């Protein structure tokens, strides 16, 4: 069981991802944007971060850069879960320090398989 920080400005999407991960036995912390997620991350550690890209206040790419600057999150796997699918955006995510890129709509089994893979 892992502690996973899920970041998405859509309440529905947070619920869907949270439900899927909890059903698999993981502990889930949710945040509605990058800034809230960063505040949470500064006070608590997570084994994995799954973040949306397009969000108000702080977007997912900025969040990844900010997290990578924190010693506790330097090597933590970070996955994006987004509607963005262009190569440019993916390269931006990779450059920021993302571990992987998942394009919505997510398939629950595929999401869990990816989570298990990056958690090792």
């Amino acid at each position, binding site marked *: 069981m892992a502690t996973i920080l899920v970041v998405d400005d*859509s*309440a*529905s*999407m947070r*619920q*869907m*991802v*949270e*439900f*899927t991960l909890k*059903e698999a036995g993981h502990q889930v912390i949710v945040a509605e944007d990058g800034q809230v997620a960063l505040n949470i991350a500064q006070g608590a550690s997570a084994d994995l971060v799954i973040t949306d890209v*397009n969000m*108000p206040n702080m977007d997912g790419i900025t969040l990844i850069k900010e997290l990578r600057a924190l010693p506790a999150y330097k090597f933590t796997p970070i996955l994006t879960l987004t*509607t963005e*699918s262009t190569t440019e955006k*993916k390269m931006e995510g*990779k450059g920021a320090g*993302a*571990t*992987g*890129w*998942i*394009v*919505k*709509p*997510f*398939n*629950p*089994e*595929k*999401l869990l398989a*990816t989570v298990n*893979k*990056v958690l090792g």
Partner: protein
Amino acid sequence: MAAVLKNLSRPMKHLRLPEFQHMKSYWDPIENVDVIRILAGECYVTHCHEMITTVLGSCVSACIRDTVTGIGGMNHFMLPAGKAERNGNGAVHGLSADAAYGGYAMELLINSILKYGGRRERLEVKIFGGGRIIGGIADIGFGNINFIRTYLRTEGLKVVAEDVGGDFPRRMAYFPATGKVLLKKLRNVRNETIVQQESAYLTNLRREATQGGEVELFGD
């Protein structure tokens, strides 16, 4: 000369938002606007004075606009199995790929509006469709209506107008700049073409839902 003047009032295609440059349009001389027709699975967002049209059978469409800037658009979708699972609070959750696909269709529309200056707290939402027109899987329309209502409630977005359900398709047009909707209930039209189109869409959708979106791990 009149034709030239009329064309000058026509929005230039290059003013279209980048994601929607590929969409085809035609000129409607009666409404005096460019018209973009969207099909099942498509979405269109504009900041120009344009008309978006579609024909809905059991599919649903959300028409969403920022009431201050006028940027807005419309989607057209259905759930792969016609139902989204819900928890005890009536919220959409994610055990099935259905809710994930519906959420994706809604997010594409809302994100595009927000990306180009729309503000969530100013969004005006209208919903249409969800007719009971496909025999044998007759609750598909009902499942789509349930999903879209639950999704919007979960997101805190208020629906200001709706025309959903019934046993007929709808032809509709939406003007995001003003929020105006023109809707015709097709009670006397043969539904075979719409049923065929929606059945083909549903088959593709179920295949896509099984696969889900692309996953790429970057490695070292």
